[in-house]
């Protein structure tokens, strides 16, 4: 509770924005014309989303135990809805986490390997750069044809997408390690390999943060996209069911769950990464104060000349 209060005190703008959005949505829900299809309001109100729509998700719980199956004439229950959301979130998360781990490890490893040899880097760079530009979502059908529309195929697809981001990011990060570190290592007698392993590799790590977070975001698009197009489990697949039944409220519930899962992924990754580069100078309060101080001095100077 104290944490919530502190958050509100520190980020009043964020809190206000959220309240405005939620209230605005609710007003819109009551203002826009009613949809011609029953159970498919154009802007579903929150009370509708978190009662009828949420309960309707129990239709995605098809196991013969724990909760009744509405498809076979059973009652729609909140328990069934939460079981369905949990089950399908877990299905997506497993694919995503596996794909992310494989993709990140493979991407960083191959990026480091390619960067070590100038010729290899020159050969690989144009292709990799092109791959990065290809909208991967458009390649889902092709990948499903190759790998099958199943969990393993989806995991491989995610791993591939993440690999592309990380390999390009790693090559860039290696290239951006300041020369002075390499030169210092060389004058202290380190061989090229030692310099690479002990200086270039750790020196490149901080810059991988952006690629990592980019890949995390991408992995969610790829996972949900692949499931939406061809799978029977996962958040993407129950989104397809929601679309089939034009149940806008269900779509929103699923979107919220995807958003929360993605946020959690970001937070966990960022936390793990911060531990990895704990040596890094942080932009702490004094750093920010310095920047602000420069800004203030600049403004003062500008005012003085004016």
């Amino acid at each position, binding site marked *: 509770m104290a944490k919530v209060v502190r958050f509100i005190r520190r980020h009043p703008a964020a809190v206000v924005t959220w309240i405005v959005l939620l209230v605005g949505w609710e007003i819109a829900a009551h203002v826009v014309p009613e949809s011609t299809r029953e159970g498919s309001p154009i802007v579903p109100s929150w009370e509708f989303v978190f009662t009828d729509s949420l309960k309707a998700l129990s239709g995605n719980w098809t196991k013969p135990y724990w909760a009744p199956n509405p498809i076979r004439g059973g009652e729609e229950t909140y328990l069934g809805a939460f079981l369905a959301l949990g089950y399908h979130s877990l299905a997506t998360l497993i694919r995503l986490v596996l794909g992310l781990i494989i993709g990140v490890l493979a991407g960083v490893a191959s990026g480091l390997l390619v960067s070590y040899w100038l010729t290899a880097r020159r050969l690989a760079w144009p292709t990799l750069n092109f791959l990065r530009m290809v909208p991967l979502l458009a390649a889902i059908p092709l990948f499903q044809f190759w790998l099958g529309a199943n969990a393993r195929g989806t995991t491989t697809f995610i791993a591939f997408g993440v690999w592309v981001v990380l390999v390009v990011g790693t090559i860039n990060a290696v290239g951006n390690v300041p020369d*002075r570190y390499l030169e*210092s290592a060389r*004058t*202290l007698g*380190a061989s090229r390999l030692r310099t690479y392993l*002990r200086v270039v590799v750790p020196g490149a790590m901080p810059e991988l943060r952006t690629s990592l977070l980019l890949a995390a975001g991408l992995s969610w698009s790829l996972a949900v996209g692949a499931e939406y197009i061809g799978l029977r489990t996962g958040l993407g697949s129950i989104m397809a069911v929601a679309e089939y039944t034009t149940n806008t409220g269900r779509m929103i519930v699923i979107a919220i769950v995807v958003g929360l899962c993605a946020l959690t992924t970001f937070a966990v990754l960022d936390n793990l990464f911060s531990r990895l580069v704990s040596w890094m100078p942080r932009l702490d309060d004094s750093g920010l104060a310095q920047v602000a101080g420069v800004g203030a001095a600049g403004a003062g100077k500008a005012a003085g000349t004016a």
Partner: protein
Amino acid sequence: MASDVVFDNVSCTFRHRSGQLVEALREVSLEAPVGQFICVVGRSGHGKTTLLRILAGLQKASGGRVAVGDRVVHGPGSDRAMVFQQDTVFPWMHVRDNVEFGLAAQGIGKAERRRISDATLRDVGLEDFADSWPRELSGGMRKRVALAAVLAVDAEVWLMDEPFGSLDYFTRRQLHDLLLEVWASANKTVFFVTHDIEEALILADRVLLLAGGRLVDDLDVSLARPRDEDVRASPEAVAMTKRILSHLGVTGGTPLQPLEAAQ
């Protein structure tokens, strides 16, 4: 074991990004006996850093030959370790690992590395910071770490490219004292690049003056040590300052006026 440094007719030409050829160093010849503290002085862009980088093996000469004793310089090596102007202490290693970096590269075992790093950290006054991260140290302390890394590998020649340029006056003076102290007990040859004449007079046995890539003067600085304010104000020192200034193109000098007149 220790050997003299020899520059034999060394030139360095490279192409500037604009396509123009730049002669950074022109036919420089010199000999530096073991244990001499040499300051290389000159204006920016007149070849000081190029001279140092060629000796370090970080840059190739386009003509001539550089050698330490009978070993011709072909590339970087721990016999010629360098303290750079910028911060080169590896931020991802603890202070001790930074100091031991060159020793590990030589394949020296852990116990021996530890013994040497303990001794060197004590020499530079950082014995209490062995397990700190570099980000926890001040700029002056990080320079001490860089110096300790050079001391640890027991380099024959210490190369210093304006190492204290980014520090405040008092920290710089403290590091001058520290450098002279460790140098006096180590009998190493030092090449110290600076544009600061005061710094050169505090440190050097000998001042090499570079202008337009040429070695234009070679001064023997036989002032008594320590070079305190009185020594640096002696007629001999003032004459030297004037001579250096004239080479730097500051012929008129800065007229010394009484304070009231300045106001």
